[in-house]
């Protein structure tokens, strides 16, 4: 009977110890899983913040891209429209020049063109070319420029003259077309300023 009681006590003790061990293990497991949960919460938050911040960056990039391209597109369309308007103004001006009267003012202009051409080429011995409309104007001025001769060939231009030295080595284009071409960048600027540019 005595040995049975001792055995029972020992079994009780073992059961009790095992129970305590299991409970302690359970507590540890609970604590470590709680820790793991709270840690993963922090890393999850960090990951969440990272994704949000990257998304924001990407969105900002896209916004910049879309706005930048739209701004540029509209500016470019504006440039094309202004250029078309400038060309129209030029066409009208050219038409006006073509139809201009060959009066005394025009004769003065041709005379100054001749003076400028002789000065630029550096010799009075020149051959002058002009269009059919201006031939008579130039012819009437020849007496003022000894050494200058009028070529029989006519050139295709709005007006004005082309001169070359008699040895043919130097030429100077003083036609209205050439002058317009030279001054075009400045004239474009003036016209554009009328459109508020």
């Amino acid at each position: 009977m005595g040995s049975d009681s001792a055995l029972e006590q020992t079994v009780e003790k073992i059961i009790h110890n095992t129970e305590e061990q299991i409970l302690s293990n359970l507590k540890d497991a609970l604590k470590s899983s709680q820790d793991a949960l709270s840690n993963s919460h922090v890393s999850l938050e960090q990951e969440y913040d990272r994704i949000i911040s990257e998304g924001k960056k990407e969105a900002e990039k896209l916004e910049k891209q879309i706005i930048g391209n739209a701004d540029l597109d509209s500016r470019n369309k504006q440039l094309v429209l202004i250029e078309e308007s400038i060309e129209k103004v030029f066409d009208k001006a050219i038409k006006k020049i073509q139809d201009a009267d060959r009066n005394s003012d025009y004769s003065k202009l041709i005379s100054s063109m001749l003076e400028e051409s002789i000065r630029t080429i550096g010799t009075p011995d020149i051959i002058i070319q002009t269009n059919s409309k201006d031939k008579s104007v130039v012819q009437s001025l020849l007496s003022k420029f000894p050494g200058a001769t009028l070529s029989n060939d006519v050139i295709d231009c709005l007006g004005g003259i082309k001169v070359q030295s008699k040895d043919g080595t130097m030429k100077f284009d003083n036609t209205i077309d050439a002058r317009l071409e030279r001054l075009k960048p400045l004239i474009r600027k003036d016209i554009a300023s009328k459109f508020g540019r």
Partner: protein
Amino acid sequence: MSTQGGVQYSKIAEIKGPLVVVDGVDSAAFDELVEIQTTGGEKRLGKVLEVGNGKAIVQVFEGTTGLSVSGTSAKFMGKVMEMPVSEEVLGRVFDGLGRPIDGLPDPIASKFLDINGEPMNPEQREYPRDFIQTGVSVIDGMLTLVRGQKLPIFSGSGMSHNILAAQIARQAAVVGTTDEFAVVFAAIGVQYSEAEYFKRSLEESGALKRSVLFLNLADDPAIERIITPRVALTVAEYLAYDLGMHVLVILTDMTNYAEALREISAAREEVPGRKGYPGYLYTDLSTIYERAGRLHGRKGSVTQMPILTMPSDDITHPIPDLTGYITEGQIVLGRDLFRQGVYPPVNILMSLSRIMKDGIGEGRTRADHQEVSNQNYDAYSRSQEVRALAGIVGKAGLTGVDLKYLEVGDSFEKDFLTQAVDENRTIEETLSLQWKVVSLLPKNELTKIKDKFIDQYYKER
């Protein structure tokens, strides 16, 4: 802008390489613009290189292919080459001579500027300060670009310098100010695919709006390359000093520019200098690089980033050598890093930004910037020594601290140096990465950084 017409001479004495010798000329000026007209009516531009004894030597930008002595004429325009400038040049694409190639009309000019620029009065120069953020960690963190600085990139054939250039052009910005920022990008003798890449890259990122592109392609006449950096810098100067913008000028590839200079020099039968380049290569390069800077009383700045490929990766070659004398430091791309797949493959141990110290620190970037950068430089340098030692004695023969330095070297290349092509890092992100690298070391190894910064930013790994 001169409105006076010019005399056309039809007596061509000789055509030699890119040069045309015109006879019977008595009133031409040095650098005067010349219009060469072929028998077929085609017009090409050139400039006067020499005048005397009734002759003028004209350098034809678009080459002399197809020209013949008879039938060719040269019209002396009575002015130097000018670039029409206005705010409208932003967002535009031009060829190497400054003519639009984007299908849009010529810009309506506010001014016509001589492409050779005006020399800056040294007395009027302001010392370069203030930081330009490129979004590339290795540049912002360790080789900081400063407004008004000239900082070249020395690269080698086939390396990723063009990708880096495009990334800088897309991302560069001035931080902490509302001042406007612009990028002028001049591609000199680049391949068509590279030019398309630059253009597309700026268009797709929306950065084209604040950029101006000058594209001289590899199949364009070499002589045109002499003009490309000059027209680009003329536009940059206008944007900076007339419109008050901070302008970053990227010139790639300056080696092609120097090759063009050599071609002209050979055609003029000048006495060659080192490797056949003309003796005045240094002087000529300085006329380009010295156009960077800031001026007292003017709001804007011109910052230059010329890129050049070193033939055979030789840093003693005349082009990088002479460039290095003029510029304020250099960023060197390393072949080894490139082979390892590191982008951007910047070899920081051979690179330097001489005026970085004036553009960083409290109020500009962050108070700890200089110190953490110095520590990274020191640690990476030590890691290279340890790597070499490990190659001989093996890792087993290294001390604990040595092993830490090995880790630092790897982390520096993997975490800090390596960056995606479209990754735009802020200066805070860059500095955090620098701290991440040095935090691999024990605190007592951080001898370049003040304790207060260590306490604030060090995170033991």
